[in-house]
């Protein structure tokens, strides 16, 4: 471990400015996705590094968004925790956005055409009225088809975001037992971005940014005095 770095006021203030810039980028991304269904906001927090410099760290906020009724039988939402599993060319991915549809072969897919996985793989549905119960069991005209796979990760896991509201599952993934799930048919989960708190956070960032800049300028002025006045011959 390297020894403690001599704290340098200038680089402290500069790291604060950088940290706040990153925070603002994350806030802007959250706000841009305020109406992206199934989106999970990123939270930022400052971390003090070993050398006493501030640094912005991000984590996914998995708080559920509100559920909106759509009356569309292929719109599914999960109440509480858990993810649907889709099969993408890059591997299995987790999604909260249950805006599913049927493709030309009557296979259930997400909005990008990736097959949604059930307990026995991809799900093909016959013609008829689709019903999905709370455990994720899909029935068509009363005939049971397949049960959707719903998985969760250990609480406190920081999932990695992929674009398209998909997440990369980590090693702690496990299937949620059917009795512990609440799949809601005809609902979609809205983005969990809270515009109110994002706005206040954005204002705080702005003010802190101004303060850090003042600090930087002050340190600079002090150094200026040191250099120009102290060195003057008496």
């Amino acid at each position: 471990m390297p020894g403690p770095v001599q704290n340098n006021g200038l680089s402290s203030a500069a790291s604060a400015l950088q940290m706040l810039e990153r925070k603002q980028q994350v806030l802007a991304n959250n706000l841009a996705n305020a109406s992206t269904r199934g989106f999970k906001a990123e939270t930022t927090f400052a971390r003090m590094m070993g050398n006493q410099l501030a640094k912005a760290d991000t984590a996914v906020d998995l708080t559920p968004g509100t559920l909106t009724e759509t009356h569309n039988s292929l719109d599914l939402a999960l109440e509480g925790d858990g993810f649907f599993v889709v099969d993408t060319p890059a591997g299995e991915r987790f999604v909260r956005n249950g805006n599913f549809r049927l493709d030309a072969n009557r296979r259930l897919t997400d909005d990008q055409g990736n097959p949604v996985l059930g307990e026995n793989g991809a799900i093909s549905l016959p013609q008829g009225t689709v019903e999905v119960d709370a455990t994720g069991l899909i029935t068509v005209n009363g005939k049971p088809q397949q049960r959707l796979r719903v998985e969760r990760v250990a609480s406190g896991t920081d999932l990695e975001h992929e674009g398209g509201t998909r997440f990369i599952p980590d090693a702690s993934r496990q299937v949620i037992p059917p009795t512990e799930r609440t799949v809601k048919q005809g609902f979609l989960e809205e983005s969990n971005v809270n515009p109110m708190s994002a706005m206040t956070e954005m204002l705080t960032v702005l003010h802190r940014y101004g303060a850090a800049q003042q600090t930087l300028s002050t340190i600079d002025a002090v150094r200026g005095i040191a250099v120009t006045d102290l060195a003057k011959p008496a």
Partner: protein
Amino acid sequence: MDPALRAAATGMMAQQTRTEVIAHNLANVNTPGFKRSRAHFEDLLYQTVQGQQVLGENDTQITPAIQVGRGTRLAGVQRLHEQGPIEETGRNLDIAIEGEGFFQIQLPSGETAYTRDGSLQISDQGVLVTSSGYALQPPVRIPDDASEFTVSATGVVSVRRGNDIQPTEIGRLELARFANPSGLLSLGQNLLAPTAASGQPVIGFPNDSGMGRLQQNSLEGSNVEIVQEMVEMIAAMRAYEINSKAIKTADEMGQIANNIAR
């Protein structure tokens, strides 16, 4: 500061598109057989600004990767094929489909298009055509001496000819159905065309093996619900506003940064 500005700009563009879709829905609130659409967004690829890090040697700490998103983009505009309300019109050439299925019509190019708008007319040739003048497939010819035009729930078209007492069957309407109707391409004029995403049409008689049934003297109204669209519009406006604030904040931070060096 640039990434924040750009992310917020993608947010504003997304809300603009959402408003365009809502405006199109509202404009078609009285279009028979119209199906509303909704815009879907997804977040853009994330930039991993710093990978996973292992801190320390003995009491090892792992800090997760830091990811910053780059905004949002339009993932698609999905047409929702929910049943519209069946409205009684009293006009015997108005036919509504209750359930799945589309009328097939022939375009001047010879291709087949599909519609739910059953406000039919009789052309100068005596053939059943849509309100835009395209002939229904398979064609149904109405004889000159016909009266009392009726269409049954299963699509049988019959008329009374001359002074006959018994009606005569002159044809039968067929419907087409798609695995994924949302994948059909809108051609305007209430017409839809098949695509690879919609699948091939399955043709059959009305009220038979999952096909919808026909109702004469009625039209299927638009499935746009004004209140729902208005709520969406307010939400879109607020989201637009808040993204503009993000741009303003990013801009002010840029100004402050410029003041560091005086």
